[in-house]
């Protein structure tokens, strides 16, 4: 990555905008509401709260990658398919090979898809929406064929413990993955030259190129980062579920984008927040959890979730509109 010593202090002047913190307020309000109304239904139990962390970690990891993609003014629709293929490749290799090889292969899936996406976008000057839409189809097909639609069980206890099923004391190991990814992502975006370049390209690619930024290289890296984050999410799914199936990640894309945008990342580039994405991801998890514990039917959960999201988006995006 393009991190250098000269990147400290921050290369980009930070302007504190209260609107950027709305997501934290929304999260607190939603959490306190559920805590007050569901305290007899197990919402505040340690098990339930840690389950929310476990359930949202793959979304958080993907969200970190998507912050960079959106901040650069691009989109990556292939995330969910990468999750499935990475999880299946890892789970399949774990049956006869070492965990190191299996995890390496899972990560390689992400890197390969990211490089392919990035090259098509930069070398052939194609829109990322269409490129990643096409790679979504290719990778989905590969995920379906790699094990002939079979689910694959993971019986490697060490792998499962490290990648999703283990705890460190009372804290789930997944929490460390989420915090680690957030810390690395936050540092990259806020305190590295690479992050500054991503934001500059998302703000105005032509101007960024004129200032000497290697726009294509940064864009390529952004796609590699995005697909690799999806591969990590897939590996963590395999560890948490102790198995993998071709449908993993299929429905995660919109949740990830919602978490990222609610967290303060501009949908069309130029501004991003990794910590906001973490909070957005937790907000999505708390909403799902609280609505289930409320006893809503599945249809009512969708209606309530959509309505609450609309409120959250309205509040958090007002500031972005005001910024123009």
């Amino acid at each position, binding site marked *: 990555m393009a991190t250098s010593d000269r990147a400290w202090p921050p290369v980009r002047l930070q302007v504190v905008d209260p609107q950027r913190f709305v997501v934290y307020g929304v999260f607190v309000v939603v959490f306190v509401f559920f805590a007050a109304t569901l305290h007899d239904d197990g919402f505040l139990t340690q098990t339930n709260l840690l389950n929310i962390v476990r359930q949202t970690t793959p979304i958080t990891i993907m969200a970190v990658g998507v912050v960079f993609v959106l901040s650069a003014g691009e989109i990556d629709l292939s995330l969910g398919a990468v999750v499935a293929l990475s999880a299946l490749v890892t789970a399949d290799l774990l049956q006869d090979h070492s965990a190191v090889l299996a995890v390496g292969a899972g990560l390689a899936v992400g890197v390969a898809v990211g490089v392919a996406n990035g090259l098509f976008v930069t070398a052939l000057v194609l829109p990322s929406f269409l490129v990643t839409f096409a790679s979504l189809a290719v990778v989905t097909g590969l995920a379906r064929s790699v094990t002939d*639609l079979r689910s694959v069980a993971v019986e490697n206890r060490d792998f499962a413990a490290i990648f999703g099923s283990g705890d460190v004391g009372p804290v789930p190991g997944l929490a460390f993955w989420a915090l680690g990814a957030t810390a690395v992502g936050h540092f990259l975006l806020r305190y590295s030259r690479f992050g500054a370049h991503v934001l500059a390209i998302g703000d105005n690619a032509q101007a960024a190129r004129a200032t000497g930024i290697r726009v294509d290289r940064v864009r390529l890296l952004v796609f590699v980062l995005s697909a690799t984050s999806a591969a990590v999410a897939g590996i963590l799914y395999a560890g948490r579920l*102790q198995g993998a199936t071709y449908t993993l990640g299929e429905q995660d894309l919109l949740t990830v984008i919602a978490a990222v945008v609610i967290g303060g990342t501009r949908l069309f580039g130029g501004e991003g927040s990794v910590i906001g994405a973490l909070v957005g991801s937790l907000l999505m998890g708390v909403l799902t959890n609280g609505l289930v514990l409320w006893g809503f039917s599945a249809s009512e959960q969708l209606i309530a979730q959509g309505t609450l999201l609309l409120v959250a988006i309205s509040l958090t995006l007002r500031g972005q509109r005001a910024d123009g």
Partner: protein
Amino acid sequence: MDIRAGVQAAGLLAVTAALAAVGVGCQSANDEPAASGTLRITASKPLGKTLGPNGEEPTPASALRLTNKEIARVRAGGYTAALVWHEQSDFTTALDEGVRDSFRKLGIRVVAETSANFDAAKQKSDVETIAAKHPSVLLTLPVDPVVTASAYKAVAAQGTKIVLLSSIPNGMEYGRDYVTMVTDDLFQMGKRAADALAAAIGDKGTIAYFFHDANHYVTNQRDQAFLRTITNSYPDIEVVAKAGIADPNRAQEVAGATLVRHPDLSGAYVMFAQPPGEGVLAALRANGNSSTKLVTLDLDEPLALDMAKGGHTSALIIDRPYELGHAMAIAAGYGLLSKPAPPFITGPAITVTRENLAQAYQESLHRSAPKSILDALGR
């Protein structure tokens, strides 16, 4: 809301006779030839039976019974239940109503319900979330037997009684981890489809076999039962095309290609109605085909309308989700009373033709047929 309330009221009335109804249904499914109006269907000799995922022998749902004394004991327990479904559809709506109507009778309160939309990871999260409420019983259709297993085992370990529908998560043991598994009489459904298609084409001709190209216990059993029956019981019928459909949304493309090679098919079997049955029907229409007869599974409005109008669709083989829900609820009562339930329970099937189409909606889904179908039937 009014329609829903009406259906629920009908369901409440029906629940009092549900055990008897299940019994009648099972008898019809297993023993009686399904002679249906102008399409005279003769039941062939059964060449197999539905076995559980681990080879369990089937027990009809009608065999599940709770005495008044046992019902009173369950009612006195103040038990709670969670429903963890795989999707939302007509099937799960009727299933849900069957469960809830029976639970009302048993005094069991539903405290949570989820739908995974076929997302195994979401279903695992759903089960974990629901565990926080410590329900007494959990009724569920596991989306994937591999990746949901750990969550179900954890809930079973905390003392929740689990009743399964159509799938057993890996490593779960009957009696220890779950009360029983309920499913359709899958062999009977495939066999009925074969008998109906044979009748529709006069017991001779060429057919295409569109099967589910996936590792799926329910569809695999039904498809194989169809193929086994049609190839062994109807020697004058030739299966000229066997086309696997991995993605149900792409059935029209698969069927279109098949019809190019075999434009004069007498009939076609499709693994289930929505969306692959609709896709094959669309392909037949797009190819200008007006003679090929179609048989598939599940009650689906576009196909039912085609049948009502005398189109390609000759028969739909359907199950009775309301009764499956009732059986699951009674099985939950077994679990709460620590009364051993049979390990593998099957619900009945119905062969639907134009003649019993309107009635089939009530029998299967406990609601009236859509207006479009009643209009097409001239009612």
